[in-house]
């Protein structure tokens, strides 16, 4: 496959099967552009989360029966057994559906990862706290109470704190698996707005919790159905005039 300078991630002929046969991905070819939000959406069990987890090797090898093809991040095949997984996960951050706030202060939630990696300089840590909280659109709300426990924050704030925690490590790619599924519309709006800012610096891959969110946020959209990539195009095309009947049926709610 020809490499394009604008492609951050190139997935080539990628297939995966779980041991119990529950879910699989079949021959996926997908190019994810940098500095854009790429939305991966489709009905449950279609392979969205599986694909997301493969991008930072979170899939437990014990559950996976077979895996073929290549996933290239900047021309490096991350499925290669020699891949440094710690380094990969630093490069590819992830935010989950339910915020996992560590039982410590707001500040420590953010500095924890950096400290584990050996960063001790106060100034660097403070700088990272302010930068990442600003990027996650949370700074103004918490700047006066950075030493309060993270769990005291509202759900929407907790989710943005988790986003800030990933950003503190300065990843290149951010994976978000239904990051606003438990949030109210205002918090959802704030998270979506910060993603629009973040895409200027990062490559963002989002599994949205609804078709509406997919349509609102997608620069590019990939529709997955039963382990197959049905359609991939610019969001504005896919949600107004999809080319595949199955995509059309899904986005208009004709499924099931």
């Amino acid at each position, binding site marked *: 496959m020809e490499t394009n300078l604008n492609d951050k991630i190139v997935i080539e002929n990628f297939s995966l099967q779980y041991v119990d046969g529950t879910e699989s991905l079949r021959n996926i070819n997908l190019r994810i552009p940098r500095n854009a939000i790429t939305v991966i959406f489709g009905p449950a069990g279609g392979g969205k989360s599986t694909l997301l987890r493969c991008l930072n090797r979170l899939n437990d090898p014990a559950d996976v029966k077979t895996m073929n093809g290549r996933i290239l991040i900047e021309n490096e095949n991350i499925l290669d057994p020699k891949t440094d997984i710690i380094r990969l996960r630093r490069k590819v951050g992830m935010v989950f559906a339910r915020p996992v706030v560590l039982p410590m202060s707001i500040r420590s939630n953010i500095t924890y990862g950096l400290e584990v990696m050996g960063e001790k300089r106060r100034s660097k840590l403070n700088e990272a706290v302010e930068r990442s909280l600003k990027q996650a659109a949370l700074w103004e709300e918490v700047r006066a109470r950075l030493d309060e426990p993270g769990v005291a924050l509202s759900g929407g704030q907790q989710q943005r704190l988790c986003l800030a925690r990933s950003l503190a490590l300065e990843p290149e790619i951010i994976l978000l698996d239904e990051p606003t599924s438990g949030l109210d519309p205002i918090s959802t709006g704030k998270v979506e707005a910060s993603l629009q800012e973040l895409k200027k610096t990062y490559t963002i891959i989002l599994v949205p919790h609804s*078709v*509406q969110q997919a*349509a609102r946020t997608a620069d590019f959209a990939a529709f997955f159905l039963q382990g197959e990539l049905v359609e991939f195009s610019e969001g504005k095309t896919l*949600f*107004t*005039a*999809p080319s595949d009947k199955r*995509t*059309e049926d899904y*986005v*208009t*709610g*004709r499924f099931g």
Partner: protein
Amino acid sequence: MLRKTFETEIQQLKDEIILLGSLVEQNLLDSVDAMKKRDTAASQRVIALDKQINDKRFALENQVMIVIATQQPMAHDLRLLASIFEVISELERMGDYAKGIGVINVRMGGEDLLKPLVDIPHMAQIAADMLHRALLAFVNEDIETAQRIPAEDDQVDNLYNQVYRELMTYIVADPQNIERANWLLWVAHNLERFADRVTNICERTIFIATGNLLEINSSKDG
């Protein structure tokens, strides 16, 4: 279940569009008929009915907005609702042409026509018939019919040119005829524009089905 609610709402909207279209269609035929019969009272009724057409258009617009807000449509459904906006606004403007003909007849008062109306009622008949079929094609998303109808606009254009030439000869023959010829010229112009707008409805039908927004030219301007 949600999908079923949506389908029901769309069907209601389509029924209302057909109803609005039939009001416009009938009002156009009535406006020309009133002129032919020199019946200003009938023209007043045409003018009054236009108010109802306008109200109905706004009610429908509101209904479309509610469906968009509550159902958040995508793809085909989104194209359909966006097209309904366009089509009801076309219908409202087409209604204005019928009203315009009513206003002309009222202004003419009981004055005799410059010449008996032959081509003008024919134009109205063709235009109303085009609208009728174009709207059915719209609600049924019948692309083939929608693609065929715009060519019929040529007949209306030809009649318009014929009426125009004929009225000019009256004016040339006797400048005293200018006023009365001008009234009829405007009537013919309204009918010509009415038929043009049917093409816009056909364009929307094709857009809903294909996602392509194309301008259809009738053979003459094409």
